[in-house]
């Protein structure tokens, strides 16, 4: 086929279509503009500070979820792993007097182990990720209930809580989230592992035929997701000054929604953490502005669902054009 030379207009537009983050970004911008018109409080310093703290836990889980979805898999366990690592860290502090910093490490380690088990189930035992992580979801939730005896564990030493305190205008949680995103995005776009992750999502067979150890890469993605869930568990516990076994129920769905809203393709291989971050912000801001506007609870469900559906429709449209 020949390219008709009609200036660069066509190719420039075509290029823009390749930036998948453009659509979530526009959606986010639109939501921010509408929100600030509807509520005078939306753009206040306090509210922005709040949003950046509120988004942190979901955003961190979404980062891990994005890694897994990019490889063409899915992780249903982050919500439960969050609760499990939270109560384990809390238990070590409250019952055995472990220091707050060590407890943070323990919590993250629990997450990493759960993620690694997911990864091994998928790569070695060859269970589909949907089933493997569904099993992990149940086991981790059960683990959290057994460990905590079903009741919240609360009131932690100050060094544990320090990650949730405010440094200047921003919560420590916001910084942790940014660290995960900057590091995670760097790995995705600049390193071999990132390249392999995209490649596996694009065509796992071709990667195997290329002599790359695809299983190791998938294991890495699941372990990273577990790390994120563990970190999320510690962050949530520090923020609430309490870890409870039923924490994070349904968070896995929020994490998946954030990824998809951010333009991450469900079949794998396409998307970025930048997009996911915007997806997570869209989810959080939506909840925030509905509360600012004092929308009654029943109507909040409808409003939230409607906005998500509209966002998803416009996103899938855009994707089709981009192809």
């Amino acid at each position: 086929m020949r390219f008709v030379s009609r200036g660069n207009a066509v190719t420039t537009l075509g290029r823009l279509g390749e930036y998948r983050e453009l659509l979530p970004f526009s959606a986010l911008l639109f939501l921010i503009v509408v929100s600030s018109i509807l509520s005078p409080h939306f753009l206040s310093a306090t509210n922005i500070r709040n949003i950046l703290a509120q988004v942190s836990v979901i955003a961190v889980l979404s980062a891990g979820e994005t890694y897994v979805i990019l490889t063409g898999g899915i992780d249903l366990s982050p919500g439960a792993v969050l609760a499990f690592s939270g109560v384990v860290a809390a238990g070590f502090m409250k019952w055995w007097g472990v220091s707050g910093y060590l407890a943070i490490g323990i919590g993250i380690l629990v997450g990493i182990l759960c993620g690694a088990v997911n990864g091994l189930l998928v790569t070695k035992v060859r269970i589909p990720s949907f089933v493997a992580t569904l099993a992990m979801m149940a086991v981790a939730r059960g683990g959290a209930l057994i460990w905590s005896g079903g009741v919240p564990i609360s009131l932690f030493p100050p060094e544990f809580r320090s990650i949730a305190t405010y440094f200047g205008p921003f919560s420590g949680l916001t910084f942790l989230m940014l660290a995960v995103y900057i590091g995670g995005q760097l790995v995705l776009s600049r390193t071999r592992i990132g390249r392999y992750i995209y490649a596996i999502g694009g065509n796992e067979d071709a990667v195997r035929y290329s002599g790359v150890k695809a299983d190791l890469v998938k294991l890495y993605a699941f372990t990273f997701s577990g790390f994120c869930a563990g970190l999320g568990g510690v962050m949530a516990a520090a923020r609430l000054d309490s870890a409870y076994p039923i924490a994070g129920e349904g968070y896995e769905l929020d994490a998946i929604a954030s990824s998809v809203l951010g333009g991450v393709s469900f079949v794998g291989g396409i998307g970025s953490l930048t997009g996911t971050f915007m997806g997570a912000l869209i989810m959080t801001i939506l909840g925030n502005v509905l509360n600012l506007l004092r929308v009654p609870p029943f109507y909040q469900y409808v409003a939230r669902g409607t906005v998500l559906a509209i966002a998803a429709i416009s996103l899938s449209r855009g994707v089709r054009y981009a192809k």
Partner: protein
Amino acid sequence: MSIRKLASVVICVGLFLALAAPGSVAPKPVKAAVFVSSLAHPFFVDMVDGAKAAGKKFAVEVISYDARNDVEQQTRQVEDAIAAKVDAILLNPITAEGLVAAVKKANAAKIPVFTLDRDVVGGDRIAYIGTDNVKAAMEGAKKLIELLQAAKKKKPWRIVVLEGTPGASSAIERGQGFKNVLDPLKKAKEVDIVADLTAKFDRATGLKVMEDILGTTKDIHGVIAANDEMALGALEALKAAGLKVGFPDGVIIVGFDAIKDAVEAVKRGEFAATVAQAPYIMGYWGVEAAARHIREGWKPPKGTPVYKPTGALLIGTPTMVVTKENVGQVDKVTKTPPKLPGTK
């Protein structure tokens, strides 16, 4: 008549009298089965403890079942108990709809059913023994107003209401209780509802919703929540925003349920109050009512209110508004069963 003969006659008569006399040393043996949703929750552990205590007192053999929040499991357990021919069923149903079939089976087997803490929507129940959520929520709200008054806050008092998961019966009833107290005051311009939002009975959501509210205003006098989890989340948000909490000069927070963390918060003075329920008494009264129903034909007395959502007669168990002053007595009060209504 020989002495021996006389003695045997005396013994026979004595035995006869002993068996016939009501309330005497050897009453009719009763077997009662208690079904709870999940023993992973201390609330239900207390319920079973209360039932067992009553079992000792009233000579009832109490068998307890834990369904681990599995409706099918609970249904099977009820069926097993029917097959084992228990005399009474004390059911804490996992869902109001899911256990109707099990209750109907018990009805068919002519075994009396009492529901504890939660009711079912069908089948025959002698009584529903549990907290009257509307009444208890009203007590909590009244306490909040009383404390606002005592703290001499400027009227109108600015209050935040945190509701439970939309649609859940306990959320609806507690919300109704709050309304019963607050609405007239709102009309009288003594109270200003800053926000009335749901935090889905969840602590993290409570924190988030309170943060959102604080994003619009920091002028808040009181917070009342439909459970302690949400109130504890709100407490974190208020503290993080740098607001003073507690009676009399801070934001006055009233929770519901008196869970351990909340009782601790009351002790520290961060919570002004929380409403304690009495699962122990639910279990105790359940067994007592069952025993009396079988032996004496006990029924809920005239004037017992009807629980509208299900149509059962509600025997309301006592509740207690826990404050810093009486926090030491929580266990004592919630574990000392008063007289079962309809008994002398």
